[in-house]
């Protein structure tokens, strides 16, 4: 039953990524060119509502559907890993026009070359695991 709920949420997410065009390479390019409000509107409105949701859950101690406490995972304090990691991610995001959610949606849309991007991102994750202790965090 819970698996079906996750599947439903995933389907909703996939449809949203596709229909919002956030899964389109063109929209990512346009965003980094500052030539349209579209992507900023999406991220901005998601964020405003996301902040209201998250802060309300914390303030009013809202429980999950199963009556459990909702946990948030605060990120460890650091500068370098977020800045360097972020820049590397941004370089790739702009090049292939897809981040780790939409790249899977694009398989469903039928773009087979995206499989190379996914394979690359798994290799990239593996490389991080191998080099982790040598990188500034």
């Amino acid at each position, binding site marked *: 039953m819970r698996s079906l*709920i*996750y599947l439903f*949420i995933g389907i*909703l*997410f*996939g449809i949203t*990524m596709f*229909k*919002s*065009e956030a899964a389109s390479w*063109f929209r*990512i390019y*346009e965003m*980094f060119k500052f030539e349209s409000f579209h*992507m900023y509107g*999406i*991220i901005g*409105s998601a*964020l405003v*509502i*996301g*902040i209201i*949701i*998250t802060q309300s859950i914390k303030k009013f101690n809202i429980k*999950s559907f199963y009556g459990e406490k*909702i*946990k*948030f995972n*605060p*990120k460890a304090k650091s500068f370098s890993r*977020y*800045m*360097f*990691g*972020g820049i590397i*991610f*941004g370089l790739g*995001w*702009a*090049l*292939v026009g*897809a*981040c780790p959610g939409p*790249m*899977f*949606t*694009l398989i*469903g*849309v039928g773009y*087979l*070359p995206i499989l*190379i*991007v996914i394979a*690359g*991102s798994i290799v*990239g*994750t593996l*490389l*991080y*695991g191998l080099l982790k202790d040598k990188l500034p965090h």
Partner: protein
Amino acid sequence: MNWIYTPWPWYVSGPMIAFIMFLLLMVGKNFGMSANLRTMCTICGADKKVDFFKFDWKSQKWNLIVVLGAVIGGYIGSHFLITDMAVAITPATVNDLNELGFNSAGASYLPTELFETNSLLSLKTILILAIGGVLVGFGTRYAGGCTSGHAISGLSDLQLPSLIAVIGFFIGGLVMIHFIFPLIF
């Protein structure tokens, strides 16, 4: 009912993303897609060699099901909920892209120059897709999250690390498009 077949405007899309984050929180999970890449490494056996991948991947099974849903959602969206796949980017962007050699700008969902199956006949295209993928995978794990984990979940939780990461995302993206694109396309 025409709105079903047209692309969603930002003020529908953004709230939908927030709603998806809300649903995941309410079932006791956190919205973050890049964690799945690590899980996939573990399933492929990376845990035998590297400590970073040693964890009970079954605890992330729910997230893999979300990914499966995201694939199905892409299928449903593109097969039943759209009549015209062209993405209506602004004319200025179409012009910029035409100059770079992307003639499919404004006429398709993804640039056919990179994502049409024939494009795999070009070694340069394969390299671009593979290197881009490696950068996304490496960067996202180094930064501890991607667009969903940092830009949506993390910033919604007012996390300073997420703000640093998102600033990094933009520095990287701007450098790629404004300085590196003219060199490679």
